[in-house]
């Protein structure tokens, strides 16, 4: 009785059920909008139009999605090894140091395609280093990773305040941020990609780190399902006792997994720092590390699920901003409520409609079987 639900075809499992969950989330969100005395249809229109209605809007949606792909992948990788990395926020924040250092060093002398690879390495390195300690503490000292990664988020926050107010801030500036990077520290936009579809990216900071995110998603798929390390991670995630039996080193896998996870989270920093602001600012992560948890949950920790989930959350961010702009009585907080509902229905209550759908589906397939039988006779 390990699987209480019968197996469903792929398109139901990964298509229909998430869509139904999503639809219900939006329905409930619509009721909330109704409660504050606004028209939910109008809100829905602004949400969707605000996210996809113009090239520029789409560019913003995909810009946010890029960020969430990185943090979602980070959470997913750890999850496969049975580790709950809540520290994506801090790891992304610290990953910013790597990006900033590469840019500050070379932006005036080198073109972006030289700086970018170094910034990738730097962000991954600093993110991984920030995740190494919690991993190591769990492997060697048994300190639970959920607790330590949360603590490391706070430490990262203080550390970055210190660095941005004392060390990385240019002399004479009042703002807690690095200097603005020259050309070499700015990533080109993907305007040509949208232009293929006849869209104009406008001012949206949709940039090449989106492509890097897609490559990262593919690499994560390779890692988890096609490498020996991924096999070991999954074994440990499903059954630590089987991993021990097979001779896998729990501490080694824990540390390596956390470093990969942290590296992915760190790479998120490329998008806002090199892709948008051309400098590192205080609090540039803005909760993306936590959104990554929801994205990984909704995407079932599979890259093919994480990408659409990230786009969905990108849409909520971008379209949500549009709603509060167009309909002032719906505040930012309302948008957070809607996002919360999506997380609730798509993540936590994922199985709510499954029994009913399963019943429907088995009934239907049986009828089909009867039909083919009688036809055959």
């Amino acid at each position, binding site marked *: *009785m*390990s*699987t*209480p639900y*019968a*197996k469903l075809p792929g398109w139901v499992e990964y298509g229909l059920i998430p869509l139904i969950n999503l639809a219900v989330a939006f329905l409930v969100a619509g009721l909330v909008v109704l409660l504050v005395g606004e028209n939910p249809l109008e809100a829905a229109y602004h949400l969707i139009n605000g996210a996809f209605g113009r090239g520029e809007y789409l560019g913003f949606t995909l810009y946010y999605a890029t960020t969430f792909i990185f943090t979602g992948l980070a959470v997913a990788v750890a999850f496969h090894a049975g580790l709950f990395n809540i520290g994506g926020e801090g790891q992304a924040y610290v990953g910013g140091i790597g990006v900033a250092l590469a840019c500050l060093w070379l932006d005036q002398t080198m073109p972006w395609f030289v700086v970018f690879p170094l910034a990738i390495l730097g962000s991954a390195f600093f993110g991984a280093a920030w995740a190494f300690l919690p991993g190591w503490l769990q492997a060697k000292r048994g300190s639970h990773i959920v607790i330590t990664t949360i603590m490391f988020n706070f430490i990262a926050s203080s550390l970055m305040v210190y660095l941005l107010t004392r060390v990385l801030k240019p002399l004479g500036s009042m703002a807690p941020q690095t200097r603005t990077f020259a050309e070499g520290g700015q990533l080109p936009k993907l305007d040509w990609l949208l232009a293929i579809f006849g869209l104009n990216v406008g001012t949206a900071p949709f940039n090449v780190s989106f492509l890097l995110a897609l490559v990262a998603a593919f690499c994560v798929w*390779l890692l988890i399902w*096609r*490498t*020996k*390390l991924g*096999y*070991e991670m*999954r*074994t440990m995630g*499903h*059954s630590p*006792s*089987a991993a*021990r*039996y*097979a*001779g*896998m080193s729990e501490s080694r896998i824990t540390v390596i997994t956390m470093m990969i996870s942290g590296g992915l989270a760190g790479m998120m920093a490329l998008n806002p720092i090199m892709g948008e602001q051309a400098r590192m600012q205080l609090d540039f992560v803005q909760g993306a590390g936590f959104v990554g948890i929801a994205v990984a949950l909704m995407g079932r920790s599979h890259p093919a699920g994480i990408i659409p989930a990230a786009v969905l959350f990108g849409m909520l961010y971008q379209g949500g901003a549009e709603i509060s702009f167009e309909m002032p009585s719906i505040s930012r907080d309302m948008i957070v409520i809607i996002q919360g509902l999506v997380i609730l229905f798509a993540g936590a209550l994922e199985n709510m409609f499954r029994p009913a759908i399963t*019943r429907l589906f*088995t009934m239907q397939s*049986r009828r089909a079987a009867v039909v083919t039988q009688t036809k055959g006779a």
Partner: protein
Amino acid sequence: MDNIAIELRGIDKSFGPVHANKNINLKVRKGTIHGIIGENGAGKSTLMSILYGFYQADSGEILVDGKPVAIRDPNAAIAAGIGMVHQHFMLVENFTVLENIMLGAEDSQILNKGIAKARVELKRLEREYALEVDPDAVIEELPVGLQQRVEILKALYRRADILILDEPTGVLTPAEADHLFRVLEQLKSQGKTVILITHKLREIMAITDEVSVMRRGEMVATRTTAETSVEELAELMVGRRVLLRVEKGEAKPGEVKLAVEGLTVKDGRGVTMVDNVSFNLRAGEIVGIAGVAGNGQSELLEAISGIRRAVSGSVLLNGKPIDVTGRADPSELRDRGLAHVPEDRHHVGLVLKFEECENAILGYHHDKRYLNGVFLDVDAIRKDAEKRIGEYDIRPPNPRLKTANFSGGNQQKIVLAREMERGPDVLIIGQPTRGVDVGAIEFIHKRIIEMRDQGKAVLLVSVELDEIRALSDRILVMFAGRVVGERDPDATEGELGLLMAGVEGRKEAAE
């Protein structure tokens, strides 16, 4: 007219492409013990889960006392007087016995009143059915036999008239099993009806009044127990004659492959589980370790295979030491020719969520033939798995099926195929046939003997005394962590039984 407690009419159930129950008809007479047997995956558990409301039948009818009932969920089953004791217990580990029994059957919101009443009722049930347990003991501290008793009490407390037991003896010691059967007899004499699923035909013959046989989803026969035989039942189950006796020739023991000297192992709480154990295992022989479960056999296997640290002692594998007290590493030992079929296939030997082919390389995933650099060679892995599925007749023959969806016997074959296939020098096997049907037992026993005849050294641990006696060339008996005696396989059951109970052993050690 016979009084029918339960009647099933035309029960049908499919899981996707798997047709688990095909048009099942069954009548269970009131006040009898009715056995249900069948190969692994025949659909026994599915049928009982339908009766208990865990699954819904796709079609068919259930009649209790001649009246049709709709059993939508376990609550409806309980209301209809049906209770079930599951193969894997469903108790709250850190609750007391009393709390577990009351759980979900509390009379009022105020617990105290209910508790006092429940305590009285529990006492009455205990007396009536000889089911003593301490109502204030915490579940996780009770041995499995007592936990099972709590499950039975739970059903009786809910006034069950019909009790379903799914493989209840798989986890019990022989003495606990005997006691369970006395309880079942007692229930029967009080007019209760019992449905018993088991793979042990001896138990069927000893205790049931009638027995029904399932094969590949169908109910193929029902017999009056007194008028049938073990041979007939085995044949009905498998569809062909089954060799119930193991045939094997003389052992030709060769050089020592595994030498264990003064091995001592403690558990997490510092209790000595294996106490100064020494023995030799030679090429071409099977050494069986007999003993009541929990007398250190598990820890012994784990220490030798490098999963658990020993406190002291030494082990030589092919003449070279294994660092059992330090850094012994299971994968290094595999490379050195030691294979291990663990006792607990669900948590240790397999990852149930993996595809079959992924489990077929567990522990051997470093092997070059499965790798392209750091990448898995998926084609090679699947091809290899397919080959093994053919050789070991693993059903269904699909290397990409999730392991949890294989039946118990086939899961065991997956582990055996993996561990035997590379021709290790030393094979250590724990509980090779736990929960496995007669056809598969025959197959597994044959393979183990084959390994021996190829000159491999086999160390076998089993709580089934019959199995130990049938397979072993020498028998070591463990009691309280120590080897208390060595016997030939033709030693009588009584003699081994006394050793296992620690009676003879104490004398021998004193001499």
